[in-house]
């Protein structure tokens, strides 16, 4: 017995005795040449950079994005706690934060290098039109909870900031090519040039086609997504503290899918619909010293076009100017303030009688001011952050969006924070101005008419207020040496949610024939307004553990529930149920990241997603596998297999355009990345 114990004690000394101890002074005696060649046994996760922030923040580093095997932004977000990512179809995604999934998750703000890609037409992001060269993304910041005090309206449940690398960090050539088992290929090329004292420039272009989804029977062809993006970024020389950036890009993407249509006579048909998206943007930013502090000014123009087959098109022109100033700390106060203005010109041309917009053209203006004070109550231990954004939008009204956050860091390992914040979501142009004929409702047998047509329009007396949320959060973070643990509890109270109700004035006979047979049925209008309210609460957990120097385990889990207020109105109740069930009540993921040595990596990620009621999506488990090999300094090879143990599964059914449900097949792709 004793000898066994002795062995247990001695064995580690024999096997691991040569490893340098944490505070071994000999490490500090190594020369620079030796240090440069020394392998790190466990790399800390850069996500901890924002551990000082009293908010639920996850930062995906370039390495995290690479190891996730993602080819698009939504895929990279799959393992972030609180974020539910479901694939609707080829290039089409539902990305919800704390519930509220959907093709246009209207409570989530998404920005690329400070430029909003949130569309004011439908309040949401056209993920199928978004094309980013992921190899040049430096990080993706995901802030859950209201981020309105700093980022402004529509940051109701979260903000996603995609930050690309500075041009000074991307000097050289990069070629990335991938091809999947269906033969769909994409190619990205970037050339970075050092301009000496003027800074650096990179130009890039990317084009390709994504794999399609399957029908329930496994057949192909229900959807597609292809297109290209090209652009540039210039950054000032890295010598000074004043910095400037100029960047721009153009892209075009076409995406096709089948829409399920219900004729008024109750027949269902699949109607192919092709979307064409085009966008161009130009952004400039300058940082300089001002009054001992630091100021930045950013301006951009952006044009987005969306063509929906022959049925209509939308145009959005945006001009945005933003100023921020971080003052030099004054006593215990660290103050930041800013001003912003945005002009948005929108035009929707409805070529189909199913949709009409009034007015078709709108010029909206948003003016905002924010201030934030970070107060150190006890140095290193207690910090209080008070802030607010005061925003006026011509689409709603004046919206104050305050926040208060308290953080306690009793030691180097633990931090505990609590917050209360309020945020607003401006009505979209669609919600505010559109009349949509969207279906029919059969009447009980014996009625004088067999059915009525259903159409949604803004309520006659609707004052078009913004939706409002009040959120309370409690968070805990623990630093586990090279790993971390995070838990966040949240409770959100939504008021003035925009929803539909049956028009009490009853049936209306159309003055002109309806565009669908039998042409003359009466119309029951549903009127939109700030008529609903909801509550949601839940918990988000994230763990990152280095088990050995070559193996890291990462896990995340979210459990939540949303309850939308019920009323006596059947239509309102149906919408309420759909909203409650637009996201699963729980989902989680587990990732094993292994380093095999000699530049080889293996990643295995499994995720479990609960049932999604809207669209009757059953719970599923998916396992993804990635193998990476750094063949040489200049060449990386990746092999990725998605949905390893699953021939087909359904992840989401589009609720905005009623798309035909499509299934995600087992897919594999091979990718090569050359850098020289």
């Amino acid at each position, binding site marked *: 017995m004793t000898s066994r114990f002795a062995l247990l004690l001695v064995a580690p000394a024999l096997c691991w005795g040569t490893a340098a101890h944490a505070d071994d002074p000999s490490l500090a005696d190594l020369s620079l040449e030796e240090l440069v060649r020394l392998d790190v046994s466990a790399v800390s996760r850069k996500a*901890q950079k924002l551990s000082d922030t009293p908010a639920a923040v996850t930062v995906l580093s370039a390495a995290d994005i690479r190891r996730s095997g993602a080819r698009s932004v939504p895929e990279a977000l799959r393992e972030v706690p609180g974020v539910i990512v479901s694939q609707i179809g080829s290039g089409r995604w539902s990305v919800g934060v704390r519930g509220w999934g959907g093709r246009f998750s209207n409570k989530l703000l998404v920005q690329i290098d400070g430029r909003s890609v949130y569309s004011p037409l439908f309040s949401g992001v056209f993920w199928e039109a978004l094309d980013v060269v992921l190899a040049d993304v430096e990080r993706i910041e995901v802030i859950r909870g209201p981020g309105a005090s700093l980022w402004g309206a529509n940051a109701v449940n979260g903000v996603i900031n995609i930050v690309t690398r500075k041009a000074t960090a991307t000097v050289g050539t990069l070629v990335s090519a991938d091809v999947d088992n269906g033969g769909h290929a994409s190619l990205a090329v970037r050339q970075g040039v050092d301009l000496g004292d003027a800074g650096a420039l990179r130009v890039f272009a990317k084009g390709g086609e994504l794999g399609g989804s399957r029908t329930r029977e496994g057949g192909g062809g229900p959807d597609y997504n292809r297109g290209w993006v090209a652009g540039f970024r210039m950054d000032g020389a890295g010598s000074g503290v004043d910095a400037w950036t100029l960047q721009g890009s153009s892209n075009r993407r076409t995406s096709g899918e089948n829409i399920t249509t219900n004729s008024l006579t109750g027949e269902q048909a699949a109607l192919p619909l092709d979307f064409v998206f085009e966008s161009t943007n130009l952004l400039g930013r300058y940082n300089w010293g001002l009054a001992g502090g630091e100021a930045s000014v950013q301006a951009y123009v952006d044009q987005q076009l969306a063509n929906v087959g022959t049925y209509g098109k939308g145009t959005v022109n945006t001009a945005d100017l933003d100023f921020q100033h971080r003052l030099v700390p004054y006593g215990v106060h660290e103050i930041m303030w800013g001003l912003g203005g945005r002009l948005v010109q929108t035009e929707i041309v409805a070529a189909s009688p199913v949709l009409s917009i009034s007015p078709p053209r709108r010029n909206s203006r948003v003016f905002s001011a924010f201030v934030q004070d970070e107060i150190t109550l006890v140095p290193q231990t207690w910090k209080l952050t008070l802030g607010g954004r005061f925003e006026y939008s011509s689409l709603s009204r004046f919206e104050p969006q305050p926040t208060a956050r308290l953080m306690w860091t009793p030691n180097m390992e633990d931090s505990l924070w609590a917050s209360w914040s309020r945020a607003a979501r401006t009505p979209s142009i669609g919600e505010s101005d559109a009349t949509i004929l969207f279906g029919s409702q059969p009447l009980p047998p014996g009625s004088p008419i067999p059915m009525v047509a259903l159409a949604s329009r803004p309520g006659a007396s609707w004052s078009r207020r913004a939706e409002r949320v009040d959120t309370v959060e409690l968070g805990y973070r623990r630093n586990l040496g090279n790993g971390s643990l995070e838990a966040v509890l949240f409770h959100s109270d939504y008021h003035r949610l925009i929803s539909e109700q049956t028009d009490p004035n009853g049936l209306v006979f159309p003055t002109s024939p309806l565009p669908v047979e039998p042409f003359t049925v009466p119309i029951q209008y549903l009127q939109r307004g700030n008529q609903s309210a909801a509550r949601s609460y839940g918990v988000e957990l994230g763990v990152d553990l280095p088990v050995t120097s070559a193996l890291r385990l990462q896990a995340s889990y979210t459990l939540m529930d949303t309850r939308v207020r019920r009323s006596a109105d059947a239509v309102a109740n149906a919408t309420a149920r759909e909203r409650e069930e637009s996201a699963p009540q729980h989902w989680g993921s587990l990732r094993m990241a292994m380093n095999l040595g000699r530049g080889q990596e293996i990643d295995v990620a499994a995720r479990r997603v609960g049932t999604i009621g809207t669209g009757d999506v059953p719970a599923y488990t998916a396992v993804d596998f990635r193998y990476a090999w750094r063949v040489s300094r200049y060449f990386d090879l990746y092999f990725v297999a998605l949905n390893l143990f699953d021939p087909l599964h359904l992840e989401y059914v589009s609720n905005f355009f009623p798309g035909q449900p499509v299934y995600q097949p087992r897919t594999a792709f091979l990718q090569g990345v050359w850098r020289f």
Partner: protein
Amino acid sequence: MIRHLCRHVLALIIGLAGSSLMAAPQPGEYQIKAAYLINFARYMEWPAGRLPAGAVLRLCLLGRDPFGGSLLALEGRPVQGREVRFRQVDSLDQALECHIVFVSGSEERRLGLILRGLSGRGVLSVSDIEGFAEAGGGIGMVTEDDRVRFDINQAALTRDGLRASSQLLRLGRQVFGTERGPR
């Protein structure tokens, strides 16, 4: 006996995997980064007025400590005939009294402000915040392919009156602000 040994080794592996959940991590990134800081002190020259011969070399940490004691372990070490003194500082004013300031990742949000404050004051700023050297910091540490490397901003050092030895410049991954340019 061999079978017994195998069983022990197995128990050991399981034990290690379990204990690593709680125990201190293996020597890693920040131990190496601490060793780098000492080396930067060896290969850097401060203006005589800023650091007279024989004076102590003040090494400071601004922000939360990711080093877990490895910086404190450098206290009292001799470097080029000077003694290293370590101190954790809370404000920019305190940081200006130091010769080397390591800016912790916790300060990322106020990085611009910190760099402006330290600029031209004879302080070597070092950090592992991404893009630190490019942003105008002195030396930025970068973990790449499981190795810790560093980028140097030569123009920033010159502005601060510091002189890096040719050996330091040669081993840097990228050197900004010289004719050599980033690689």
